[in-house]
């Protein structure tokens, strides 16, 4: 099956003139070989050679001094700038010296030689390797049952040895949709103190965390005192804010951007817009925190909040679909 290579089938047969010559022809030495192998730049110019030698010596002297300097810098407290200078000079002097030595005093600059081989084998060798391969392939191909069996066993065993990968992490579950907020969970600041509504001035903004698990990465929430701004409230979100003097007052918005999960932490008090500095998604807080610019396509979810008996701000519940949840960027099962 191997000795009838169809000329039209193999790419090589389509272009038998590899590099323009037949691979079975000897590779031509089409130019004089080794024409400049022994000459060097200052050959026959002892003065120039002496000068070149001095240049190289000067470069390496720089390395020598810089090495001593490096030791001094290390002992003297390792100043980073001086260390960089010494390292740089030491490496630089060595490199310049080596390159000058090769350029000025050593032979072998400009040599021409045959490439020597074709990167391809002769026709006989190609037939031989295909035959070697065929010697094993033929008897193997005679047992189609075993081949199919091996394929099936390999597939099942392949799945079996993938099991250790499952230990890398838990399977995704409900907590994809949940944060640490819940009914009555107090909002606390970075240092763990609870907040009263009166502590947040108009147009004030504060990042708060659920007291029960402040480190949870999906829970950071922004409290914004909107004052008397005209906050759009759909029916299912009525009563989710803490009104002050009968005005809109304080609302709680998820700080986690719905695009890529960075904290949307830049707040423009004039336009009431939140901007995420990672990819510049911009959200209009007054209009359900819907995105108005950038790559985000969902609004920041709103957290229902209230005031507890002690006068501190608490959550009424976790983020929910009614409030635009779940929190954070999208995923396949988010729905």
């Amino acid at each position, binding site marked *: 099956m191997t000795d009838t290579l169809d000329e039209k089938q193999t790419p090589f047969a389509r272009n038998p003139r590899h590099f323009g010559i037949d691979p079975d022809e000897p590779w031509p030495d089409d130019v004089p070989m080794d024409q400049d192998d022994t000459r060097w730049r200052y050959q026959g110019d002892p003065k120039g050679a002496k000068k070149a030698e001095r240049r190289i010596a000067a470069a390496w002297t720089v390395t020598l001094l810089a090495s001593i300097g490096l030791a001094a810098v290390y002992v003297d407290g390792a100043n980073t700038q001086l260390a960089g200078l010494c390292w740089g000079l030491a490496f630089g002097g060595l*490199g310049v010296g080596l390159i000058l030595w090769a350029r000025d005093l050593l032979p072998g600059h400009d040599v021409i030689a045959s490439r020597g081989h074709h990167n391809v084998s002769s026709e006989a060798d190609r037939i031989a390797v295909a035959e070697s391969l065929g010697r094993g392939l033929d008897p193997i191909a005679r047992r189609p049952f075993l081949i199919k069996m091996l394929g099936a066993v390999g597939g099942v065993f392949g799945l079996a040895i993938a099991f250790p990968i499952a230990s890398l992490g838990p399977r995704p579950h409900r907590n994809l949709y949940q944060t640490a907020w819940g009914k009555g969970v107090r909002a606390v600041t970075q240092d763990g103190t609870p907040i009263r509504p009166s502590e947040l001035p108009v147009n004030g903004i504060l990042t708060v965390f659920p007291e029960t698990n402040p480190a949870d990465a999906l829970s950071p929430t922004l409290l914004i005192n909107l004052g008397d701004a005209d906050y759009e409230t759909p029916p299912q979100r009525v009563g989710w804010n803490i009104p002050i003097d009968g005005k809109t007052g304080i609302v709680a918005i998820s700080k986690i951007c719905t695009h890529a999960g960075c904290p949307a932490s830049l707040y423009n008090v004039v336009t009431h817009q939140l901007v995420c500095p990672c990819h510049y998604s911009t959200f209009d807080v007054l209009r359900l925190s819907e995105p108005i610019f950038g790559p985000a396509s969902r609004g920041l979810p709103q957290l229902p909040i209230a005031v507890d008996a002690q006068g501190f701000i608490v959550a009424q519940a976790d983020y929910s679909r009614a409030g635009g949840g779940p929190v954070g960027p999208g995923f396949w099962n988010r729905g």
Partner: protein
Amino acid sequence: MSTTEERIAAQKRLRAARAGTDTIDERLGSSKFLTSVLDKIFPDHWSFMVGEIAMDSLIVLIITGIYLALFYVPSSKEVVYAPTSGHVYIPLVGQKMSEAYQSVINISFNVRFGLIMRQAHHWAALIFLAAVFFHMARIFFTGAFRKPREINWIIGLLLWQIVALEGFTGYSLPDDLLSGTGLRVIYSIVESIPFVGTWLVYALWGGRFPGTSLIPRLFVVHEFLFPLLIIGLLTAHLMILWHQKHTDFPGPGKTETNIRGSRIWPQYALKAGGLMMLVSSVIFLLAGFVQINPVWIYGPYQPYTVSAGAQPDWYLGWQDGAVRLWPHWEFRSFGHEIANPFFPGLLLPGILLGVMFAWPWIDKKIYKDYRAHNLLDRPRDKPFRTGVGAAAVTLFSLLTMASGTDIIANNLHVSYEAIVVALDYLVIIGPIVAFIIAYKACQRLQEVDFHPIQRPVGGVIYRTRDGGYHTVGDVHHGPAHDVPAETPTDKRGSGDDGVEHGSEKSVPAPTAGD
């Protein structure tokens, strides 16, 4: 010239060298191989150095990296910064941070030469990737990926991807605010993959972001898995290069079948060693004088804070830029969703990479050229390919620029929205314009210039017994360098044969579009 003493000394040295090579040969039978190594010829062109610069930076990276690994603590355990000895960075005192971040602060301030090693490591990584990009561009524009070198093109692209990931994992190890933000974005991009996204992130992060598993895992990947892959693939890359021999530009005395340049011994060995020293020199000068990634200023990572001007390292800027510019599309139906970051974060780079992997075969189809080549194309001779390359470079640059929209907006005093909108249009128009300009420029250059292979190749001049001259092996004459054959004893040794002159007409001028 040489004195007797010099000759005797040379013979002595030869005997010593012989003793050395014989010792090895008696064990390995290596003399033939060693001869081919020492006599190997590398062509000389400045652009061939770029890949070498990448390799030299890699060596600096490995050495500085081993040093840093001796001090780094791969742990997410939360500690409060309160050092009792050594230099203390006052603004961080009392702050909660991971042990990993604390160890990086410690390397920076309390390990002598630790900071310069850290900065050298980071600078070397940036230079490494810059060299990789330039190397890749050189290969593309000169057609060095053509048969028989497609395998090395594939290996090179794989190397680029792994090296970029290696850079990203290294950038993430200090667990500072900037890198933590980067990890958050990557988490979201992986999470957005249809079907398997959430499973994948939970497996990689060991649960929900940020968790405590990632930093130790990143350390294993950055220190072991990726370096192993890089060194393995690079070895294959270099062995194939060695075996196939380097490509060269067409020029006087150069053909598909010969190679012209300097020998490895002693020319190339010393020059390559010198270049490695110079690359190290530049890296350490930068490390000493130009601050990079000052993680103590960024602070430890907190999921609820972010600094303005959050950018990845430059080589991932194009992907971050794509994520910024992509329209706000998401597909939601039947209770499922393909989230926005998937398209610019994975789909777009995937498609672009697919085209790059397939390019050697696309190129074959375009030019109907299935033959092997050792001589490179000049970019102008392949206007379409050069145009595609120019478009790709333009797209890459514009996307990289997009990852700095906030910085550009700040410096130009323009709103960031304006910059984003402008770039949204530019990433479509820019590559098309670049293609057209490059294509036309190539055609124009072809008209005004001649291919170097058409220039005299310096044939051998023979003087006949009766005083006449004639030239052998010099049949190509570029009209621009044409020397009229006034006398048969032309001192410049150019063609003197009227018949051969006539043949210049038969050398076809390169045609537009090829």
